[in-house]
């Protein structure tokens, strides 16, 4: 059962990445200026050389041929060359990926820690002022663009991962707070409280198992949010990660690089969501 679920996820993953790749290849092919090669404007080249350059690009005109060539290259580890930076895309991704993993990873950890702590204590404490504080803080943070949080972290000399933590915090806090409130209203949890079980025991033995599947699903989604936030955070905080690379590629209209980054980030997002789904399946109680 579990193996078939994993297989289904992997098949869906492969399908979505292949389709996403085709979509991206089409976008690159249809982009204005795709056919032109700036080397063709070099006055030192003769007509034959210019013709040879045009012939070299002729195979790329058909989207399917272009995509097939890209896939063949990708299978051999060749993701093409960045137009703007003049370097192989795979080298750029290899250099930049660890920075993003570190910044987004620490940000995710901090954001989750802050949100879950605040949501759990708000439920255990049940003080209106404390609850209002959490709601107001998360509401205010939801209204601030990620790029502004990045700018504020630069002004305040705060690390980039703190901005990522503050971006994902309100989403987790609001969801967790609602889930916990609904869980505490369940009849068996009300009965457990009425029987005099300690607050902590009720929380760990009765509430956490109820909210765990949805919280795990949320964990998968927050990976996507953190990676999305890495674009403004890394660009404005000067962190040389994938987000900054995507921004540089967008400004330079370096579509091959941008498309590869988007496919890679999509793959990571899908892996995180699939991992969360498999985990939920594993945690689900088996029927006798």
């Amino acid at each position, binding site marked *: 059962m579990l193996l078939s679920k994993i297989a289904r996820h992997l098949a869906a993953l492969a399908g979505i990445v292949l389709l996403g790749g085709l979509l991206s290849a089409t*976008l690159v092919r249809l982009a204005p200026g795709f056919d032109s090669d700036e080397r063709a404007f070099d006055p030192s080249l003769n007509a034959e050389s210019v013709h040879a350059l045009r012939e070299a690009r002729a195979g790329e005109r058909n989207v399917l041929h272009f995509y097939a060539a890209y896939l063949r290259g990708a299978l051999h580890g060749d993701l093409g060359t960045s137009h703007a930076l003049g370097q192989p895309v795979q080298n750029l991704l290899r250099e930049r990926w660890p920075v993003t993993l570190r910044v987004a990873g620490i940000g995710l950890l901090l954001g989750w820690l802050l949100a879950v702590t605040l949501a759990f204590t708000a439920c255990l404490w049940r003080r209106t002022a404390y609850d209002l504080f959490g709601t107001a803080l998360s509401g205010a943070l939801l209204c601030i663009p990620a790029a502004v949080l990045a*700018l504020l972290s630069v*002004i305040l000399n705060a690390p980039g991962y703190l901005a990522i933590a503050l971006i994902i915090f309100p989403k987790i806090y609001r969801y967790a707070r609602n889930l916990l409130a609904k869980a505490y209203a369940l009849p068996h949890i009300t009965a457990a409280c009425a029987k005099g079980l300690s607050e902590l025991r009720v929380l760990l033995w009765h509430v956490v198992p109820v909210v765990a599947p949805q919280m795990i699903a949320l964990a998968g989604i927050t990976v996507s949010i953190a990676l*999305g936030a890495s674009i*403004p955070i890394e660009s404005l905080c000067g962190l040389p990660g994938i987000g900054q690379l995507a921004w540089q590629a967008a400004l330079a209209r370096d*579509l091959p690089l941008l498309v590869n980054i988007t496919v890679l980030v999509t793959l990571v997002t899908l892996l995180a969501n699939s991992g969360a789904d498999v985990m939920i399946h594993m945690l689900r109680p088996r029927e006798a």
Partner: protein
Amino acid sequence: MSAARKLACVVLLAVCGVSLAADWLAPAGYARQFREFPGSPPSRQHLLGTDEIGRDRFARVLYGTRISLLLAPAAALVSTFLAALVGGLAGYLGGIWLRIATGFTDLFLSLPWLFLLITVRALLPLNVSPLFSVLITFFILGLLGWAASARVLSTSADSLRNSDFVLQARASGLHGPRLFFVHVLPNLRPVLYAQFWISIPVFILSEANLGILGLGVAEPLPSWGSLLRELEGLVSFREEPWRLVPLVLLIVVLTSFQLVLSNEELTA
């Protein structure tokens, strides 16, 4: 209607009203340069001072607010229309159409929003006229922001398709577009309204992010994104607190949007 909701409506109406009166309140306009006062602090002539090249910040805030508040709903209209077309129709038709639409929506939702946005924005020329850039930015937002709404709408339309009154209408001989437009679509209106309203702050935030990254509205046209870009040069909050006015205004407007929608509508 709760007091907070009423207050939010008043704030939104006031901000819209003031921004629409920009021509009268700030007759100098958003592009005029007062070259003798670059980067000046607030004064009687320039209520929020001037920017680095001497443009009146108050005028730019008013015109920028007008642009963002007019075009974000326009983009929301585009995305809600697309969502109704894809999600509403697929849910109404059911079967293979629903499965195809769900798969396509899932594919779209699995692409990280900001990555997708900057990829599509980069496809289009960056050196275009300011008016074209503002239209293109919000049109892209509307064009790419339909997926989440379509998911909600397809679920709602699917449940309506199996409801008693639709079954009775079908038994009475009503089929095709007439059944969809007369019975299904009017019942989807609350969901469409909620999705439209939810999309507006999302698009305002997305435009602000794009603007700060230099991929949004082109100069000299102001928008909240380009106004917030000014924070890049800020050294400390105490030195020039008036430069935070666009940010405060953005937070106030987005909070008002959050308050205007009730919890039931937000979860619709």
